[in-house]
């Protein structure tokens, strides 16, 4: 309203009722978009809908291609799977990561593979950091050995995380005290006892560094729209470090917003609109129309099958490693898949009711648009940077190669209508490093 965010329109998940809520300001704390990949370590309910719809109303979306792939998750084992479970990173303190040196050994039981035939690839490639190399590097290294055909477990997408040496060194009891609960979770899911056979792990989508653009007061480019936590882009650059998502949640919610929001509110007293305002009517109608359209499709495909297809495409083309051809292919295929969704999906039930299929349908519809923005951003960022690894840009040893001269910028995208007719507009915000200067990192 007059360029300010003054309220929200929501659908009550329990009753289906559409509510208009007028406010002095809006704070989005709606989390990240990792579930665009279908499989991630996020909870099932996580989605991009609130931030994406704010983007469609003018908020800038920054760095959407920066997605963190966590190295230590239980591997994917079939189409039935609904989520990937994270095994805490702390396991890498005592576990040693390895795969067989020879492809032929991949189907052998791990205990039958002698020490000399094992490749402790993180220790080999990064002698100083070893098994504790950062997340993006460990993830890419796992992908590399699996791409070479040396992965283990069903489908060959897994590496061993072995505690045998640690158990020999400090005893099973100590390992049990340190990680007992994680070993239990692992056994529940896989049916394997990691005290006796090495765990199998593989990288999985875990966190999204990108999000709505905000200033130092955590306000987006729309006055009155504040965005906190994983939903914004602000704290983690291209590669979040361990434990800092919790830090951001606390910092944004306890230490920043309580001081910056009142500053905005001070000038807004008495400006809260009534929900009779024409803007509310318009937003309300748009929401209802979208719901009707989803329920009308009545096709033959399930939501999950389309969401899985989108996730697989992104994982292959915009996952741990990206390249120009792959991204262009994804940018061709996503609109096709979106059309398929709006033609072929089946959303049962009705709108004025508790309807979980409708909930998910709205979210998948937004993911299908958002995925395109993500690939566009990944294509435009023609360098490797943190979790964004462009295969064209790597050092001779295969490490990420940044281009600080041309890309030390935040990429923030503005929605300009239907992507088929008018692509989003890119704004670049230069990054200034005053005390700590940019350098090439090395974990060798």
């Amino acid at each position, binding site marked *: 309203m007059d360029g300010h965010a003054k309220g929200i329109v929501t659908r009550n998940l329990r009753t289906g009722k559409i509510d208009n809520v007028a406010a002095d300001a809006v704070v989005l704390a709606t989390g990240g978009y990792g579930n665009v990949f279908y499989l991630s370590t996020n909870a*099932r309910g996580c989605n991009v809908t609130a931030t994406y719809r704010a983007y469609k109303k003018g908020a800038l979306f920054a760095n959407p291609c920066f997605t963190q792939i966590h190295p230590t998750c239980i591997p994917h084992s079939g189409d039935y*799977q609904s989520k990937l479970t994270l095994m805490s990173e702390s396991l890498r303190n005592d576990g040693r990561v390895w795969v067989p040196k020879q492809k032929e050994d991949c189907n052998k039981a791990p205990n039958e593979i002698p020490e000399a035939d094992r490749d402790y690839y993180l220790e080999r490639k990064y002698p100083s950091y070893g098994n504790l190399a950062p997340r993006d590097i460990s993830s890419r290294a796992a992908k590399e050995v699996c791409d070479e055909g040396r992965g283990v477990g069903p489908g060959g997408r897994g590496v061993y995380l072995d505690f045998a040496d640690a158990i020999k060194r400090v005893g099973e009891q100590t390992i049990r005290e340190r990680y007992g609960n994680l070993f239990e979770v692992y056994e529940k899911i896989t049916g394997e006892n990691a005290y006796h056979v090495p765990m199998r792990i593989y990288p999985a989508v875990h966190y999204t560094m990108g999000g709505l653009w905000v200033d130092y007061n955590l306000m987006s480019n729309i006055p009155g729209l504040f965005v906190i936590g994983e939903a914004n882009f602000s704290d983690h650059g291209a590669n979040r470090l361990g434990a800092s998502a919790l830090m951001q949640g606390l910092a944004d919610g306890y230490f920043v917003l309580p001081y910056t929001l009142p500053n905005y509110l001070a000038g807004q007293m008495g400006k809260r609109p009534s929900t009779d305002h024409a803007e509310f009517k318009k937003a309300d109608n748009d929401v209802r129309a979208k719901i009707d359209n989803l329920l009308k499709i009545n096709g033959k495909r399930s939501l999950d099958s389309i969401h899985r297809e989108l996730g697989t495409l992104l994982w292959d083309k915009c996952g741990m490693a990206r390249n120009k051809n792959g991204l262009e292919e994804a940018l061709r295929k996503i609109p096709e898949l979106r059309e398929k969704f709006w033609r072929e999906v089946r959303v*049962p039930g009705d709108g004025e009711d508790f309807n979980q299929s409708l909930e998910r349908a709205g979210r998948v519809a937004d993911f299908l648009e958002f995925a395109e923005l993500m690939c566009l951003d990944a294509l435009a960022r023609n360098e490797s940077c943190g979790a964004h690894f462009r295969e064209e840009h790597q050092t001779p040893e295969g490490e990420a190669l940044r281009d600080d001269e041309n890309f030390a910028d935040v990429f923030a995208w503005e929605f300009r209508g239907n992507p088929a007719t008018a692509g989003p507009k890119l704004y670049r915000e230069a990054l200034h490093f005053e005390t700590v200067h940019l350098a090439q990192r090395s974990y060798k």
Partner: protein
Amino acid sequence: MNFKLKVWRQKDRQSRGKLVDYDAPDIPAQASLLEMLDIVNERLVLGGHNPIAFDSDCREGICGTCSLTVNGEAHGPDHPGAVCELYMRKFRDGETIIVEPFRVKSFPVIKDLVVDRSALDRIVQAGGFISARAGSAPEANSIPIPKHDVDLSMEAAACIGCGACAAACPNASVMLFTAAKVSHLALLPQGEPERTKRVVAMVRAMDAEGFGNCTNTYECEAVCPAEISASFIAKLNREYSKATLRHSAGE
């Protein structure tokens, strides 16, 4: 694996529900029970039927959203663990599995297997918080807390608020939940200022929601996915007695 299911279907809070039979053939043994329901739902939707409504979110046992009674046990037969951590290989091939919502009067059914557990939120709202301002953190060593208290408080704080304790209890008592919330804060100096007020308010809220009282059957402890010990209920009773004494003494 192949299963026969009997699943509680109920259109809404007002309607009468009933158990409906479904076949669940070709289920991977590594699938969780919730993933098995996903597969059944996908087949139902493609066959033109309405899917079975059920709650879930994190699917790794930490959020407390899933709330199914499987073969008569809250969260199913593989304790400790939430029902999202129950895997199909724990069942026999060909077995008939009965899936119902948590059965508690204070958790009315919203649809099928989804129940309304906002009663638990209202108990927490009555006192499950501290007033200490966040501000800048004090030096950690300025408030020493005995290790034993920290460990006990941590044990209580593990409660994920799923409500299985009430679903398993013959009296539909939610005292294990309330005891965990009260103890977690009462054991720490940060919880001290509201200690008396908190326990009285939370016990009153619990009674007002229509939950029953504890008669020491310990079914709650047996199904609790966070393995909260029933001895916390004794702590709740002590906290409550002390608080009401102080109240009646005019404090």
